[in-house]
C-alpha cells in the first residue's frame, strides 16, 4: 500500500546561510518540499497553520529555542519528526532532545549525505506513524 502523503519539511535556523544550504541539500538530494524560517518566533504560528512531516531545527535561537519547538510538538502530540541540527552539542542538550522525542541529534558541520539519510529515516518513521494511525482507524 502506498500512501499519498505530502512529504514536507520545515527548517528553522537563525542563520539564513544555513537555511539556504539546507534548501539546496534537500532539493538536490530528495523529492521533499522544504520551507524555512530564520525567525524561530514565527514557528508557533506556522505550526498552527500547517502540518509538516519533518522539522529540522537549530537549538540556540533568539526567543524560541529548538528545545521549545520539540516540547511543543511533544506536548501537543503532533506527528512531526524533529531532527536537531546544531552547533551547540552539549550532553545536556542531547539528553533533553531525546527526552522529548527528537528523531536525531546532529552536530554541525555535517556531511550532506548524513543529513539526507537522517531526513529519510525521519520521513520513514513519520510515514509508518501515519500508516499505523490509518490502520487503527
Amino acid at each position, binding site marked *: 500500500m502506498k500512501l499519498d502523503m505530502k512529504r514536507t519539511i520545515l527548517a528553522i535556523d537563525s*542563520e539564513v546561510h*544555513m537555511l*539556504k*544550504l539546507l534548501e539546496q541539500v534537500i532539493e538536490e538530494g530528495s523529492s521533499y518540499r522544504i520551507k524555512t524560517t*530564520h525567525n524561530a518566533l514565527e514557528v508557533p504560528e506556522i505550526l498552527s497553520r500547517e502540518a509538516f512531516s519533518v522539522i529540522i531545527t537549530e537549538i540556540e535561537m533568539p526567543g524560541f529555542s529548538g528545545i521549545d519547538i520539540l516540547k511543543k510538538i511533544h506536548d501537543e502530540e503532533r506527528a512531526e519528526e524533529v531532527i536537531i*541540527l546544531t552547533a551547540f552539542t552539549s550532553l545536556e542538550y542531547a539528553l533533553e532532545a531525546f527526552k522529548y522525542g527528537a528523531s536525531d541529534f546532529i552536530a*554541525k558541520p555535517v*556531511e550532506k549525505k548524513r543529513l539526507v539519510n537522517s531526513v529519510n529515516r525521519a520521513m520513514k518513521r513519520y510515514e509508518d506513524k501515519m500508516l499505523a494511525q490509518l490502520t487503527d482507524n
Partner: protein
Amino acid sequence: MDKTENYKFDSGENSNSDLQTIQKNFALFLGLLEQNNNVLGIMGDMEEKSQGEYLFDIHYIRECLTEIRNGIIQIINKMVALGGPEYESLRVRFNEIDSVLETVLPGQQTIKKDSLTVSFDRLNRNRAYSVGSKNAQLGEMKSRLNMPVPEGFAITARAYQHFVDANDLQARISRRIDSLDIKSYDDLVRIGGEIREMINASPIPLDLVSSILQSYRELIMRTSHGMISMRSSAIGEDTLFSFAGQYASYLNVREEDLIDKYREILASKFTPQAIYYFLSHSLSEAELAMSVGCVSMIDAKASGVVYSRDPIDPKDDSIIVNSIFGLGKYLVNGSLTPDEFRLSRDEGKILYSRIAKKPVRLINLHDGGTIEEAIPEEEQREPSIGEKHLQELREYALQLEQHYRMPQDIEWAIDNKDKLFLLQSRPLQIIRLKSDAVQLDTAHKKKIVIGRTTVCPGAGAGPVYHVSSFNDLPNVPEGAVLITHHPFPGLITIMSKVSAIVSRIGGLASHMATIAREYHVPTISGVPEYKMLKSGHIVTVDATEKTIYAGKHEDIVKARKPEYDLFEDSGIHRVLDRVLDLVTPLRLLHPAEDDFLPENCISFHDITRFAHQKSMEEMFRRSQEMESKEWLGYKLKSDLPVDISIIYLDRGLSDDVKEKYITEKDIEATPMRNFWAGIKAEGWPVKSPLPVFTRGLGTGLTLKTTNDYSEFSFAVLGREYMMLSLRMGYHFVTVEAMRTDEMGNNYIHMQYKDGGATLDRRIRRIELLKNILSHIGFSQQKKGDFLNAGVSYQDKKEIDEKLFLLGRLTMKTKQLDMALSNDAVAEWYTRDFIKKLGLE
C-alpha cells in the same frame, strides 16, 4: 599532554648542562610541534568542509579560527622561547593577517578607534575595517600602487558610530529591524522609511561637522576646484558581497550641502533594497557601519567600467571595457547602453567593439549638482573612448587583478585634459558555465525576440510582467519574467522571486547586472522589441543564447542551468573561502630561498610552516652554540638524497669531535633502525620528477618543474625512542615511536601533511594512507590533506614491523599525489600497495 612526559630521559652519567639544554629545547620543540599538528588538523578540516560535501555554519568558522589563533599564538611564544626575540616579527605578521581576517568575517566586528576623517594618502586596504572597502582600495591604489586616483578623504566608521551614539540610535534601529519580515515588501518599505526618518532627524555632532569641513577645505586646497562627490563605503561592502549600487552617492556636492548629504548617505543604509540585501545575506545591520568617501570630482568627458575578465565566461581571454560620454552614473545605474570593447589580455588587440547610440550624457554643474545634456545627433554614435586609454585601462586592470589576486571590476573616468583616473576597484564575480554544452532542438520553438547582451547566463520561464518603477514591484508574482525598460536599483528586492529579467537597455557592467549575477537570475539586456512580450504570456528566456521563446520549455531551462557550485557559491561558502584565503595558502615553500621570511607569510599556514622549519633549525643551532662549539647533531650518512641531522637525547657529544657522521648501520636507536630499513627496502624512486602544481593562490594552477629537493630533516633519538621529521619533496611526515619492553609504554604516532598536487589529489593520497594504515591497526583522524595516525599498546616485535612498513609506505607515497587524478586510480594504488606490502 606534554609529549616529553612520554619519554623518560635517561641522561645517566652523561648528565651535563648541554644535555639539559637539549632536553629543555626539545620539550619546547615538542610543544610547538603539537600545536602545529593541532593547527594543521583544523586547517585540513576547514579545507575539507570547503569542498562542498558538508553543511556548516558561521559558528563553525569562528570556532575553528579561535582554535587556530590560539594555536599560532602558542607556536609563536614557543618559537620566541626557543629562538629568541628576533622571532617576534612573526607576531607582527600574525597580527596583520589577523586584522584582515576580522574584516572578512561577518559579525563580531567592533568599530575600532580611529580619527573621524582620514585622507586617502594615508589609507591602504588593511584599513577597510575603518573606512570600508571602497575607500580602502582607493587608498591602496593611490598609496601603494601609484595609480591615478582622485584626491579625497574618508569619513570613518568611527564617525558613524559617534553619530549613532550621540543620538542614541542603535537600540531604536535594531528593534525595528528585528521586527521586520524580510519577505514582506511592505515591511521593508515601512520600516526602512521609519529608520531613515529617524536618522535624518538626528543632528550630526559638532566635532564631526568641524572635522568634515576641515578635511574638505584641506582637500580643495590640493585640487584646482571645489567639486567633490560623496560615496558610501560601507564596512563589509565589496568584500564578501558586492552591495553594488545599494547605497546612496551624490555627485558634485557643494560645501554647504556636505553635512546633509553625509547624513543622507548614512540613511541610505536603510533603503528597502539595502535592508533586503543585508538581511538576505544574513548580515546584521549593526555590523555594517557606514563610512563615506569624499572624492574630488573628475570633470569627466567619458566614464565607464573595465572588467579584467568576462564575468560570464572567465576562460575567454579578454578584458572588457564599457564606456559612455560624461559621468559614469548613467552606465552603472543602467540608464544608457554603453559602448563595449574587448581587448586581448596579453597584446591588447581589440577583439571586438560595439559603439552604442548614446543620446545623452550627465555633466557637472558649476555651482553644484549635475545635469543631463543632449548629445548632438552626429556625435551619438562616436566611440566614447580611444585606443590609448583602452590600452591604459587594460594595463591597470591586469595590474589590479594581479595585486588582488582575483578578477576586478574597476570604475574609471577621463577628464577634460584627457587624463585617466581610476575611481574604484572591487572583486568581479565570475560565473562558471557548464563545459559540456547540451544540443537543444530549438528549431520547432517559436522565437519572439532576440537580445544583444547576456548579462547573466541561464534560462528561466514564467509569465511576463512589466515594471517601470519602484511602485510596480510589490505585485510582481513569484516566478515572473520581469520586463523593464532599464534596470533600476529597487529591482533587487524581487531578485529572489523572478525567473528571468529582460531589459531594453543596459549592459554587462551596471550595478543591477552585478546583482543579477550574484542572485543567479538569467538576464538579457539590449532587447529593443521588449514591448512585444505581452503581460501574462508565458515565455522562456534563454539568457545564454539571448533568445526569448513563446511558451514554457523546461528542456531549455534545464540545459542552460549554469554550473553554479551550489555550495561553493552560497554565502557561507564564500565566507569560508575568503577566510581560507588568509589561512591556508602556502607561499613559503623553500627554506633555502631568500624570501623565506616572516614578512612574506601570506597566511597562517605560512606562519606555522615558517615556525616549524625554524624551530628545527633553532634546536640544532642552539646545540651548536653550546660549550663544545660543535654540532651536537650528527649527520646521517646515506646514499639516499636526504639530509638528516640527528640529536641524541640520552648521550652527550661524542668524545671524538671529528666524528660528525653516523652511518646507517651505526644507528643505535632501534625504532629508527627499523623505520630506516623500510625506507631502504623501497629505495629512492628512480623515475624522473613529475611536474608539480604549486599550490594555487588564486584560481589557477601554475606549472612548475621541480628539482627533487629534500630539505632539512631530522631525527631526535634515544635508544628506545625516535622522533623523525622528514620533508620528502612536497610532503612532510613525522613519525614518533617508543619501543620498550613494556607494551603499555609503546606507541607510534605519525603525521602526514601537504604535497605538491591539487587539494583533491592530496586528499586522495591521505585516504589511501588511511585505508592502508587501518589494515595494520592504526587509529586515525583525517582532516583534509592532514593525517594523524597512531597505534599503541604493542609489543616490541609489532612496533618493529610497523615501523618497517611505515618506512616503506613513506617512500611509496612520495609524490604519489600527482598520480591520483581520480578515485579509481587511488583505489587501484591502494589495492596494489596492500598486495605489495603483504597486508592482504
